[in-house]
């Protein structure tokens, strides 16, 4: 229990140790701690930000989906309308074509009839001429009596 030089030696040792700790140990450790604290805070902020972004993106995706649905509906309606139009057009065309064919057929029939009539008329004229020749027993001059014959033919 003697107080001696150890006292001073211990004080000096104390100062040296404290100085060493202050100079070489404390700064890097506390720096690492502070840096990690900052890193964690940044990470949390980034996570928060990411979450917010995701919410926004989801919102946007929903918006786009809704728009797409609307567009699809519109397109379907337009297509249906168009289909109906096409069907109507086709019907219209078919009807017009039918009418045209009918008209043509009628015209042809009329033509045929006229031709047959003409033929018949020609034949009747020749028969009539032949008949008249036979009746008269003499040859009728066809050129002299052509006007008369034609008149006759038109009447038949």
């Amino acid at each position, binding site marked *: 229990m003697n107080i001696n030089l*150890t006292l001073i030696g211990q004080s000096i040792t104390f100062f040296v140790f404290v100085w060493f700790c202050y100079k070489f140990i404390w700064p890097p450790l506390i720096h690492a701690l502070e840096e990690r604290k900052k890193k964690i805070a940044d990470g949390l902020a980034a996570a928060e930000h990411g979450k917010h972004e995701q919410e926004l993106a989801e919102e946007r995706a929903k918006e786009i989906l809704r728009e797409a649905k609307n567009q699809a509906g519109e397109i379907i309606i337009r297509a249906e309308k168009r289909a109906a139009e096409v069907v109507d057009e086709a019907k219209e065309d078919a009807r017009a074509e039918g009418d045209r064919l009918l008209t043509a057929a009628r015209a042809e029939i009329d033509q045929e009839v006229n031709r047959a009539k003409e033929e018949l008329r020609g034949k009747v004229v020749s028969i009539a001429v032949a008949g008249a020749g036979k009746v008269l027993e003499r040859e009728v001059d066809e050129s002299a009596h052509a006007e008369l014959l034609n008149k006759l033919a038109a009447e038949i």
Partner: protein
Amino acid sequence: MASESLTASDYIKHHLTNLTFGQHPDGHWGLAHSAEEASAMGFWAIHVDTMFWSIALGALFLLLLRRVARKASADTPVGMQNFVEWIVDFVNGIVKGGFTGHNPMVAPMALTIFIWVFLINFMDLIPVDWLPQVVTMLGSGLFGMDPHHVYFRVVPSTDPNATFGMSLAVFALMIYYSFKIKGVGGFAAELTLHPFSSNNKLLQLVFIPINFLLEFVSLLAKPLSLSLRLYGNMFAGEMIFILIALMYGGGWILGIFGGFLQLGWAIFHVLIITLQAFIFMVLTVVYMDLAYQVGEH
């Protein structure tokens, strides 16, 4: 483990004597061979055991911490860095809470004190005879010393020189920063103008010496109580370990009982050594804070 040739009081006395190196009264330098010789050396002697263990333990933890500090990174900490960071964070929290001034030296000082005092106190948990026995064997075997004259105390904090040395260093810093922050006038005013003060100039003049006496005593009490608290606790703890160790010489029934006692006391002592290291650190921080407080009164 007291050897047969020693009485109990000799054993205790042997355990309480430091390995002292100094100048003998006849003029030559050397180790003291007895407690009486050690006291005869006066102030110019040094306790080799106290110095050795305090420096060795201090160097050990400082180098260990230095290694961790060099590799410290902000990434996920592993192993030792985890542990060190935990202590650093703990000490930093206490300094931030207790020290209001700005001085980057205080926190590292608190860390040094906490770990160093803890390690020094920890030596108390090593069975009292182990290390002295090793040193005795080394001393008598290698240097041909008389085994009975090889003294060795392994717990520096049971040496008042060590605790006073630390508390005086803290006290010196406290005085230095008091002067630096408050100035000579401010510090003098702090010592003389309270607790008693009066608007009457004459009365104030009477109060100054009274105040100074009170404040000066309370100022001196700080380093004294700081070191004596640690010293007293550790000395008492060591004493009980020595007394328990005496039981090993009293037959095997007493020896087994002593073994249990030692275990129990050691477990309890873990609390004390940690607490004392903590108190030393916190009081240092508080004293430094007091040195930094200006114009509070």
